[in-house]
C-alpha cells in the first residue's frame, strides 16, 4: 500500500482523499503485483510453506474485513484489494515455520482491530500488517523468531533452524557473521539475492527493489520516505555500529539485512499512515531511520524496522499538524 498520488501534494488535510472506489482498488492491486518478485523468491527459498503462510494471511484478512463490515452494517468492500494487500504484506513478514493459527490471529488484529475499528480504509493510524506482526511477535515470541535456513525447498530438503544475520550481529558480532557466510563479498551477495534466514519476503533485496522500481515508475510511491529512511539508517549504523569506535560500523550489512528494504519501500510509504506533505515525509523517514538504528544497536530486539515504523505512525498526525502551515526545516538536510 504505497501511494503518493499527485493530487496529494496540494492537499494538506490529514486523511487521504481517494478519488473513487475504482482507483483505490487499481492502486491496491498494482502494489500487490509489485510484490510478486519478492513472493516468487520466497517460494523459491522456503518452498510450499511460503504459499501456505501467505494464503492463510490473505484468507484471514479477507474474512476479517468481511466480518467487521458485516457486523457494523457497512458496505462490504472486500473486493477493493486493500485487505488482500494487507494479507500479502503480513505473509511476507512471517517466518516460514509459523503454526497455522498465528497468521489467522495476526491478520485479524491487522484488519479487524487496526483498520476496521478505526473506521476502515483511510482512517487507520497504524500500518495494519505491521501491527498484526507486532502483536504476533509479542504473543508468540518463540514461534515468530524461529528462522529456517533457506533452501531450494521444493527439492524436499529438511530445513534447519538458524539465526538471522542481524541476530548473529547482535549477539556475537561481525566476526561471527563473516565466519558463517565466508568473506565479505559472499556476505553482501547472499544478502542481496536473499540467501539468508528471515521473514518470507524480506530476504531478497533485489526482488524487493524490482518491485519498488516498478512502483516508482508508476508514481505510486515517491522517493522521500524510503531514501531518507535508508540514508539515516546507513549513516547512523556507519557512525555508531562498530565496536572499535566511531565510523567503524558496516552500513551495507545493515542496509541489506532484516526487513529494512521491505519496510522502507512498501510499509513506511503506506499512504494512509505516513504524513501527506513532502517535508513531513522526510521527517518521517529520518525518524524511522533513527529509531531503527537505535533499536538495532542499543535495544533488546535485533531488528527494529517494524517498531520504528509503528512508532513513527504514532507521530504522523503530529507531523501533519505541525507542517501544515509552517515549516520545520531544521533537520531536512540530514535526510538527503
Amino acid at each position, binding site marked *: 500500500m504505497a501511494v503518493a498520488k499527485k493530487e496529494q501534494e496540494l492537499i494538506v488535510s490529514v486523511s487521504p482523499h481517494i478519488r473513487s472506489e475504482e482507483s483505490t482498488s487499481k492502486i491496491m492491486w498494482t502494489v500487490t503485483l509489485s510484490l510478486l518478485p519478492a513472493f516468487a523468491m520466497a517460494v523459491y527459498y522456503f518452498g510450499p510453506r511460503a504459499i501456505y503462510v501467505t494464503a492463510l494471511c490473505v484468507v484471514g484478512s479477507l474474512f476479517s474485513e468481511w466480518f467487521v463490515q458485516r457486523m457494523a452494517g457497512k458496505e462490504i468492500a472486500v473486493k477493493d484489494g486493500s485487505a488482500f494487500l494487507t494479507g500479502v504484506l503480513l505473509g511476507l513478514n512471517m517466518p516460514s515455520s509459523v503454526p497455522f493459527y498465528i497468521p489467522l490471529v495476526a491478520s485479524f488484529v491487522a484488519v479487524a482491530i487496526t483498520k476496521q475499528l478505526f*473506521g476502515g480504509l483511510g482512517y487507520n493510524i*497504524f500500518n495494519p500488517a505491521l501491527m498484526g506482526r507486532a502483536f504476533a511477535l509479542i504473543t508468540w515470541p518463540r514461534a515468530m523468531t524461529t528462522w529456517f535456513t533457506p533452501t531450494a525447498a521444493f527439492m524436499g530438503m529438511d530445513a534447519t533452524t538458524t539465526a538471522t544475520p542481524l541476530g548473529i550481529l547482535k549477539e556475537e558480532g561481525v566476526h561471527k557473521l563473516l565466519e558463517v557466510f565466508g568473506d565479505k563479498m559472499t556476505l553482501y551477495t547472499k544478502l542481496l539475492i536473499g540467501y539468508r534466514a528471515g521473514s518470507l519476503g524480506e530476504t531478497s533485496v533485489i526482488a524487493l527493489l524490482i518491485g519498488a522500481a516498478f512502483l516508482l515508475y508508476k508514481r505510486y510511491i515517491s522517493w522521500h520516505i524510503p531514501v531518507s529512511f535508508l540514508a539515516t539508517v546507513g549513516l547512523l549504523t556507519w557512525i555508531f555500529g562498530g565496536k572499535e569506535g566511531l565510523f567503524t560500523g558496516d552500513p551495507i550489512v545493515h542496509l541489506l539485512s532484516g526487513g529494512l528494504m521491505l519496510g522502507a519501500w512498501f510499509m513506511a510509504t503506506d499512504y494512509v499512515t505516513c504524513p501527506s506533505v513532502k517535508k513531513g515525509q522526510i521527517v518521517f523517514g529520518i525518524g524511522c531511520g533513527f529509531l531503527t538504528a537505535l533499536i538495532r544497536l542499543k535495544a533488546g530486539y535485533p531488528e527494529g524496522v517494524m517498531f520504528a515504523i509503528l512508532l513513527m505512525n*504514532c507521530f504522523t498526525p503530529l507531523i501533519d499538524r505541525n507542517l501544515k502551515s509552517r515549516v520545520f526545516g531544521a533537520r531536512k538536510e540530514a535526510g538527503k
Partner: protein
Amino acid sequence: MEKEFLKLFELFIAASVINNFVFTRFLGLCIFFGVSKKMETAIGMSITFTAVMVISAALSWIVFHYVMIPLEITFLKIIIFIGIVAAFVQASDTIMRKVSPGLYYKLGVYLALISTNCIIIAVPLINAGENYNFLESLSFGLGSGIGFALALTIMASIREKLELADVPRPFRGMPIAWITTALIALAFTGFSGLITL
C-alpha cells in the same frame, strides 16, 4: 562524574520513554484519557504537569529525607506526600492568580485537576522506595513529566484525527481511545531492553 551524569540521563530516558508511565506503568490514565481530546488542552496540561511534577518531586524528597526519616514517620508517607502536593498546587494556584492572571487563565484549570493524578503521587512514592538521591529524584520526576507530556500530545493528535473517522458506533469515544492506547503501547515495546534499571 561522567558515570553519575550517565545514570541521571538513563533515569530520564527510562522514565520518559521505556517505562513511560502511561504505556507501561498505567498511571495517570484518568487525566490521559480525560484531557487528550483537544490538542490545546493537552499542551496546556503537559506544561503545567511537568512543572508541578519536578517541583513536587523535589519538595517531597526534601521532606522525606530531612523530616520524615529523622522523625521515623516514614509510614505516614502517603498522607504527607499527598499533603505536600495538594498544598503546593493550592499555593501555586493562589500565587499564579495574583502574579500572572494571564498565565492563570491559560493553565489554572489544569492545576485543579493535577492533585488527583496518580503519577504525581506515584513519583514521590517511587523515589522514596528506590532510595534515589536528590538529583536522581529530580531527573526521574522530569522524565516522568516529559513522558506524560509526550503520551498526551501523541494521543491528542491521534484523537483529533479520529474525530473525522467512521468508527463503528459502539466504539466511538472512549473504547477506541483505549484501543489506540493499546496499539501505541505495543509500538513502545520496541524500546524494551534499551536501558536496564
